[in-house]
């Protein structure tokens, strides 16, 4: 069985995560679309730390008999991987868009210079 202090600490930590994410969205520093995965992470970790019997059962499925909270760590790591992967795709898209913006700006500036010299003639 999971030691109670571990469950409490894990529950408090995941609740804090949820709270921080919520506050970040509220103050518009984090957009909803990028917060969903974080909220899911916090929610699942909170559920697993509060529902101690469930954590035990899941641990036994995987043959983890000695220390069930290891499952908490594993699930947490999995979610963090998912978040990181998601952000990698976001960064890739942003960098593509950044390229397009820079190119459009260069073309516009050239057009504008052309227009300026054209009108001063």
């Amino acid at each position: 069985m999971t030691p109670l202090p571990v469950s409490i600490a894990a529950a408090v930590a995941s609740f804090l995560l949820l709270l921080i994410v919520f506050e970040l969205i509220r103050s518009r520093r984090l957009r909803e679309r990028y917060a969903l995965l974080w909220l899911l992470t916090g929610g699942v970790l909170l559920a697993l730390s509060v529902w101690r019997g469930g954590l035990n059962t899941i641990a036994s499925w995987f043959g983890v008999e000695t220390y069930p909270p290891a499952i908490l760590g594993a699930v947490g790591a999995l979610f963090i991987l998912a978040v990181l992967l998601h952000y990698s795709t976001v960064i890739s898209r942003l960098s593509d868009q950044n390229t397009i913006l820079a190119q459009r700006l260069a073309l516009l500036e050239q057009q504008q210079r052309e227009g300026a010299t054209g009108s001063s003639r």
Partner: protein
Amino acid sequence: MAELAEVPVPPSGEILAQLGELKRIAIVPSLNEEASIGRVIDEIRAFDRGFDIVVVDDGSTDRTAGIAADRGANVLRLPFNLGIGGAMQTGYRFAFERGYDLAVQIDGDGQHDPAQLPPILGPVLAGEVDVCVGSRFAEGSGYQSSFARRIGIRLFAYVVSAVVRQRVTDTTSGFRAVNRKGIALFAADYPHDYPEVEATVMSVKHKLRLREVPVVMRQRAGGASSITAFRSVYYMAKVLLAIFVGLFRRYAVPLEEEHHR
């Protein structure tokens, strides 16, 4: 073209007369709508030539922008897809900076028939509301939809109605008219991704007066719906989250004209 159904529409002539000298614009967000965009522009002009038209091309890969420009519409071509929210806000920024008094939103896919504009324009022109939304589900419009879609629509209608303390039936309708106050708000702040639901909530939270009127919408003439079945769960979660968090935000009434006209 779908036929128009029996919705009581105030006499068009009266509405057109009220439009008078108002500086007015139709914002037409479009993504790959080459099949319908031309007709949409023609129909807006057929309704009232006094409407300026701005087509916001949200990164189309077809001839949408070209067709719109050929018909003399203003075309704002976004360098890449921003999503409907970013596109709409671009239109509102244009309307705000050019000093328009009245803006209507009309989708580029042809589902909004400009001939249905009078009931939407009426309350705004009368100064009764700041935002008027054409609803497919308000009494007297008789809309048919798939079962799954109905559930989602019902859920949003229920949540939004509770939040804004006012009955709202069609939260996802993008067929709207707004006055200068609404233009100023939406130019300054417009929701991302799937914006109509949040825009409705935002309007009311900012103390804008909002009303729904029944309209009939047509089947999409071209293009693909931005909401596929695959994304609808994500969509619902995201919008519900936004509404929930929105409850805890403090809202300010938008500043009166900062920019000179």
